[in-house]
């Protein structure tokens, strides 16, 4: 579904991605892990065309991504940091994004699930961090695209919202979608992901499912297995 070929990206002197090759299969939840600053967001933004790679190619559904961005209609994206236009209300923003996409959007159910009704007419800069994240989630899941990319979806959510989020993700998976997610919450990753990739120093350091990770590191506990990956390399 998503194929990445020899992707390179540097910001000034900072080489973030140094030749990433990755093949993301059609169905399932795919977790991208790695320490802070390892380039997860950069990788995701390259897929979306928000970051312009120095080298390498990206294919979506077998077609190379184009400058015109039309392929983005196949992708629902949840950004890591939800920056919204401050002078808009929640409802206005939802309507605007829907209008810009020009497709159908189902947000009533999502607004109910995340209890956003009281905030619909509030301006976005007056919302709490977690509430903003809920709006962010609504904006992502209200569309029904084949690919869903979630960059740190759990940030700031309370336990109830977190459960709703997990259910949402699972429901999307059952529809046969390709879901790409990053997170530092290991229990979350362990619960939802089918396959993980671990990025370290600009390269794919590990790719496989949870079982393979346990075998490779000799750690039964997922959190320890990841920590083991991290520490081995830094030693």
């Amino acid at each position, binding site marked *: 579904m998503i194929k990445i070929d020899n992707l390179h990206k540097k910001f000034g002197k900072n080489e973030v991605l140094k030749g990433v090759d990755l093949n993301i299969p059609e169905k399932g939840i795919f977790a991208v892990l790695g320490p802070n600053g390892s380039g997860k967001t950069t990788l995701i933004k390259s897929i*979306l065309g928000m970051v312009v790679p120095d080298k390498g190619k990206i294919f979506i559904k077998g077609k190379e991504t184009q*400058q015109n961005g039309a392929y983005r*209609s196949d992708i629902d994206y949840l950004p890591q940091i939800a*920056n919204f*236009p401050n002078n808009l209300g929640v409802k206005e923003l939802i309507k*605007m994004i829907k209008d*810009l996409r020009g497709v159908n959007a189902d947000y009533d159910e999502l607004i109910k699930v995340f209890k956003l009704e009281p905030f619909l007419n509030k301006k976005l800069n007056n919302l709490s961090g977690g509430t903003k994240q809920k709006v962010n989630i609504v904006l992502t899941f209200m569309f029904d695209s084949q690919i869903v990319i979630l960059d740190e979806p759990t940030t700031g959510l309370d336990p109830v919202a977190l459960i709703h989020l997990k259910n949402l993700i699972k429901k999307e998976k059952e529809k046969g979608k390709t879901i790409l997610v990053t997170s530092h919450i290991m229990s979350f990753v362990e619960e939802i992901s089918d396959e993980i990739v671990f990025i370290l120093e600009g390269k794919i350091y590990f790719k496989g499912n949870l079982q393979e990770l346990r075998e490779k590191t000799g750690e039964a506990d997922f959190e320890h297995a990841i920590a083991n990956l991290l520490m081995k390399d830094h030693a």
Partner: protein
Amino acid sequence: MLKILKYSFFDLIRSRWSYVYLLFYLLLGFVLLFLNEDLSKAVITLMNVIIILVPLIGTIFGVMYYYDSKEFTELLLAQPVKRSSIFIGQYLGVSLSLVMSLVIGLGLPFVFYGLFQSSAIFDFTLLLVTGALLTLAFTAIAFNIALYNENKIKGFSYAILMWLFMAVIYDGLFLMFLVIFDTYPLDKFSLIATMLNPIDLSRILILLKLDIAALLGYTGAIFKEFFGTNTGLFSALGALMIWVVLPVFNIYRKSKKKDF
């Protein structure tokens, strides 16, 4: 692109500053016309205000809007929209709303004054066209400056300096140059120096049309001599349009390569 233009345009139309700007021109137009019985004098005063103020407003609104809509831009970048549409759409949203304030703000008083029966209508129309082109040019230049500077304070300072240079310093340097090198033939130099500054260009353009020899000044006289009044007028207008096209093209070019 039209959708983005629409959102940016209405975003600005809703803002208080657009009204302040519009009101200012309304006031200026009425005061000038009713105090000045002479229409062509009013046009000259207006010209002096327009060629300094319009670039300043275009510059300030341009940088401010770019930085203020950063979040909106980020949101748009993840949508199936062309990058160039996002930036050109926002640029047109800002510049067209400013042009609208200018045209309505100055147009209304003149209509009340009975402009349509007067022979000054062409002078006045040219004044508005020049104001519109200046708005388009300086908003585009401001967008460029903002695109190259992540830092808001820096971008803002550069933009203001750019305006100061074009509106004030440039003329000073130019005059100094003329005085120092007054033994050389400076026709071509003056011509080119004028083309390189949209504000000077606008002044010449309007004065050529008004055809007031006393006000034309050195460069104006050269323009007239070099091209004749009509060709001079059109070449100045053409040069001013290039000042719009080039920065807009660079917005298109630069925005394609930028990381967000």
